[in-house]
């Protein structure tokens, strides 16, 4: 039944939307939509703080859950009317289950959790949403907020391992792995770093074309130096024979680049340039422009001193020549 026909609302004059005389992007609202929002605008204008207003916000939300003005008003009413926040948790749980990819619903839940100062339902709830869409960005964002705010780190690595067993290609879970470890034990200790490197290599052996595992391996080593981990380059070269992928080859380039930074050797540079060429022309041609750039870049940075000396040119002078001096 429309609000305009309800006796209990007769005292309120609905406020039609002010789109002006020549509207643009004019939406052909249903009668129900117009009716509900005409009354919402009336309530907002009056700043009415009542139960009927509170009830109407739910209808307005159902019609457009992305209307952040309605959500804000609902929060004002929740506080002004001292509404039962446990009941609000039940409400927002239902709404998120129906519309899990909306910003406003998750923000609203965060506010209610904060007001209640009670995160006890969160991890289970988020796990349920993730069971329906394991990559829901809002869900992961809310999860990270809850864990960090209320220090609920204890079981998260276990949760991560379970999800990786279900889908080792879920990049959101790899990200969560990094989140948990970097905020708890960190990656400094050789024991942890080694455990993580081994974990990666095991996952790679099982699924060689999983980019997430390779990115994680690089991600945890890049600050410490890819070539710093003993025996890793050798292990990767071994894997190249049976478990090759464009990701493995890219990782090799990164190892060589890192090695060059510590010890500029012609042989290392040549290997790096060769892999770049192989990637550009054969194994990862969609990224040809990038691999050729990287190749030129490495060549330019690590141009060997002994080559220059053979040419009878001082390395310092050579760069002057290049720069047109």
């Amino acid at each position: 039944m429309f609000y305009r026909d309800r006796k209990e609302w007769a005292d309120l004059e609905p406020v039609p939307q002010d789109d002006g005389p020549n509207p643009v992007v004019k939406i052909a609202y249903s009668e129900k939509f117009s009716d509900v929002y005409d009354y919402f605008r009336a309530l907002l204008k009056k700043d009415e703080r009542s139960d009927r207003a509170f009830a109407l916000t739910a209808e307005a939300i159902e019609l457009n859950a992305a209307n952040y003005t309605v959500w804000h008003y609902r929060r004002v009413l929740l506080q002004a009317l001292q509404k039962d926040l446990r009941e609000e948790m039940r409400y927002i749980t239902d709404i998120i289950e129906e519309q899990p990819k909306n910003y406003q619903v998750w923000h609203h839940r965060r506010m209610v959790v904060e007001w209640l100062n009670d995160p006890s339902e969160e991890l289970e709830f988020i796990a349920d949403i993730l069971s329906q869409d394991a990559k829901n960005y809002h869900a992961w964002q809310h999860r990270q907020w809850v864990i960090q705010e209320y220090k609920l780190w204890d079981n998260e690595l276990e949760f991560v391992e379970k999800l990786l067993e279900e889908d080792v290609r879920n990049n959101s879970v790899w990200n969560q792995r990094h989140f948990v470890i970097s905020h708890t034990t960190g990656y400094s200790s050789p024991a942890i770093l080694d455990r993580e490197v081994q974990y990666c290599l095991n996952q790679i052996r099982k699924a060689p074309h999983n980019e997430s595992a390779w990115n994680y391996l690089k991600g945890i080593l890049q600050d410490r130096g890819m070539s710093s981990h003993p025996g890793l380059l050798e292990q990767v070269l071994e894997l190249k024979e049976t478990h090759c992928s464009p990701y493995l080859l890219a990782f090799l380039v990164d190892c060589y680049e890192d090695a060059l930074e510590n010890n500029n050797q012609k042989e290392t540079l040549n290997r790096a340039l060769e892999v770049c060429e192989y990637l550009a022309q054969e194994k990862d041609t969609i990224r040809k422009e990038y691999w050729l750039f990287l190749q030129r870049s490495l060549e330019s940075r690590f141009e060997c001193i002994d080559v220059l000396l053979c040419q009878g040119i001082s390395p310092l002078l050579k760069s002057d020549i290049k720069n047109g001096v």
Partner: protein
Amino acid sequence: PVVPSGLLLCCRPAAVKPRAAMQHYRFLLILLPCVCLPRPTLLREQHYQYLKKGLRHLSDSYECLDASRPWLCYWILHSLELLEEPIPAAVASDVCQFLARCQSPTGGFAGGPGQHAHLAPTYAAVNALCIIGTEEAYNVIDREKLLDFLWSVKQPDGSFVMHVGGEVDVRSAYCAASVASLTNILTPKLFEDTPSWILRCQNWEGGLGGVPGLEAHGGYTFCGTAALVILGKEHMLDLKALLRWVVSRQMRFEGGFQGRCNKLVDGCYSFWQAGLLPLLHRAFFKEGESQLSRQRWMFEQQALQEYILLCCQNPAGGLLDKPGKSRDFYHTCYCLSGLSIAQHFGNVDLHHELILGKEENRLAPTHPVYNICPEKVAQALQHFHQLPVPEADQRHGASSWVGPATGFRVQMFNGG
């Protein structure tokens, strides 16, 4: 290998090159039932009719965007400007008047008349007004109030909430930096600590997440990077790691881009992801990088054009995420924006075009920071830089508090 003659590349200077990767061809051959691939055609007329209608009327399926109407204006106007379709003066004026009704009395623009101000429709409204580019359009913006609004959503840690009582993520920094720079209300104080907050969003993958700790994502990476470019701080990012991340997001089979590692292709990332390459090119250039190409961005421009033209067009007009999905104005805007990026290399001084298919497929170039045409950016900057930067009256912001007599001002966290 047999190269379908249909997929000839037309570029300047003239050089016909077959597609390098057969795997990409195999994908297209499987996807399209015809034996030989026709030269891809941009369905200009169909898109134009779809856009022209939408600018006036939208079906009730758009009720879900009732709090994003300035976005609808921007998506449609930008698509029309890319197609080089003129906006009739009467329509332009109507848009101005509508957006004026979306402007909040306390500053900034809302999703619709009577709603609260929000950084996303603020970004969209300012962009739409700059596309129109008339005095009437520029005059709609209340710059003093806009500055008040930006202060009201600024957080102590350098981030911005999207609206008073709303959520924080890196989109807000981009929206704020974009409108502040275009309308010349940008002060260093306004963006104090913002670059360092954005940097915290760069993660182990090399891309940026929505807030520190989150998975790298194309939309957020674009917002963070473009914001830093506006603030002149893009060099603070690990550019090499970012470059590796974004180039890895182009799909070897589909040719389009994914939003996150191990997820599916989506036409809108043609802009959010591919649009990063011009930004990075410029950033590397500023750093003195000598090995940059002078003809190509560091992604496969032809493959992206193929994906958009062959897989993302609705025959009745409008563009989309991927085959099987329905058209919408968001995807129309960002697929066309990505197509433009893929067609045009360079800047004012150096310009190299690579148009897949007929010359008629050519779109206008777009500015990779603001995503409106470069002439409109220049014109807006020229107009607003003649005006003085407003004196920020931080006291009137919803969340600021003036401290003791020393005049020290403290921004209180606005938790709603």
